[in-house]
């Protein structure tokens, strides 16, 4: 009995939902498509509840750190930044109907911390990529040499300086992008979808149980 409720019914729910949504993409029947479009709304609503779990776990982790007096400053900064934003934004949204994306204080937090954080971490990549290129672009084998050559030519080809070095670099770049690059990317796309189909069949048939967590 317990096995049925714990394992088999969730699995059947998964299979039913999967075929239902696949049918919506492929078929054109008005009432069916309308039902499926409500279905996607249901899924989005359900999915967003998982955040409760994670906020609880994250808060618990950092409250414990503060209690144990390890990394007190960092953890309290995190808790304050999270809960002040959350409580104020939620209060304004739930009781005064102000959308969090338009709420002044929440927007200031966004502009002062989140947005510069995003762009800084993104731009730190410029340093990392230079270091990775310097460290790892070595002509060790034919494969590595091809990687290195294609990378360097494309790099030069995209910057105005490439054309100043040699008139052939831009057209060589274009050829690399048009032919080997298209081929390589197409294969990654193709092989990805083939693997994914096989994985999904595995899930539908119930062999892959990673998504169910523990064994019982």
């Amino acid at each position, binding site marked *: 009995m317990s096995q049925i409720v714990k394992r088999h019914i969730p699995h059947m729910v998964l299979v039913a939902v999967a075929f239902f949504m696949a049918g919506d993409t492929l078929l054109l029947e008005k009432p069916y498509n309308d039902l499926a479009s409500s279905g996607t709304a249901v899924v*989005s609503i*359900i999915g967003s509840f998982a955040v409760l779990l994670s906020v609880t776990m994250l808060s618990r982790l950092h409250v414990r750190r503060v209690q144990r007096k390890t990394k007190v400053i960092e953890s309290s900064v995190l808790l304050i*930044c999270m809960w002040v934003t959350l409580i104020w934004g939620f209060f304004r949204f739930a009781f005064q109907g102000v959308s969090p994306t338009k709420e002044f204080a929440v927007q200031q937090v966004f502009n002062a911390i989140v947005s510069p954080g995003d762009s800084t971490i993104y731009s730190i990549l410029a340093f990392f990529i230079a270091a990775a290129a310097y460290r790892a672009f070595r002509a060790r084998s034919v494969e590595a040499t091809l990687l290195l050559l294609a990378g360097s030519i494309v790099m030069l080809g995209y910057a105005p300086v490439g054309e100043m070095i040699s008139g052939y670099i831009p057209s060589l770049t274009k050829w690399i992008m048009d032919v080997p690059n298209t081929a390589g990317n197409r294969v990654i796309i193709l092989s990805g979808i083939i693997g994914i189909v096989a994985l999904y069949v595995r899930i539908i048939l119930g062999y892959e149980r990673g998504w169910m967590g523990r064994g019982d």
Partner: protein
Amino acid sequence: MGAIETLTILAAAAITLALFSYLWRENLAYRIAEHAYIGAACGYGVLVAAESAWRLLEPRLTQGLTYWYLTAVIGLLYLAFFSRNYFWLYRYPTAIVLGSEIGVTVARSLKTQFLEQLRMTATITFPSPFPFPYLNSAILAVGVICALFYFYATMEHRGPLKYVSKIGIYFLMAAFGAAFGSTVMARISLLIGRLRFMYFTDPAYYLIPVAIALLIVGIVLDRRKKPETA
């Protein structure tokens, strides 16, 4: 410009510098900025998620479709995870989310990512200035076929097949090199954007010294502390 805006820009500059300080080494200023960033991003993210879920739910509830409250009930099943005996209830929302993803992705991707890709490989001719467009199409088709064969898993790649998969991996590597090169461009553009902010934003130029001072304080504090155990 109001005091709050100035303060915002000061905070933004401080966060930028503190996060950049990671490049030198992991330090207290970085850790504080990191935790502030994670905290604020979580708070903001949860608010946005809550709002968009409510925007989906609200119009249905105002129409009197009260059974839509069931979605909230199913969503709350995630919290059963904290229970010792009923933890398995979380599998129901998971099954619904995963199932819908499977259905949507597979059916759509089979067209765009499988059939259309096959067709375009077989037919493409380039709108480009190169001589021999058909030669390039042929090279492309050979490349795709060889590289796809590289992923054929249940057969040893021996004899002539070894060369096929070798050619395939060469094409893949050239593609990866191209991706690397073009990404370098992307990253440098972003850095340019960030440096512009640091150099040219209105109050930033006189606030930067303040931010640098904060950073130095952070580093000094960090130096005075004993190195942490792993």
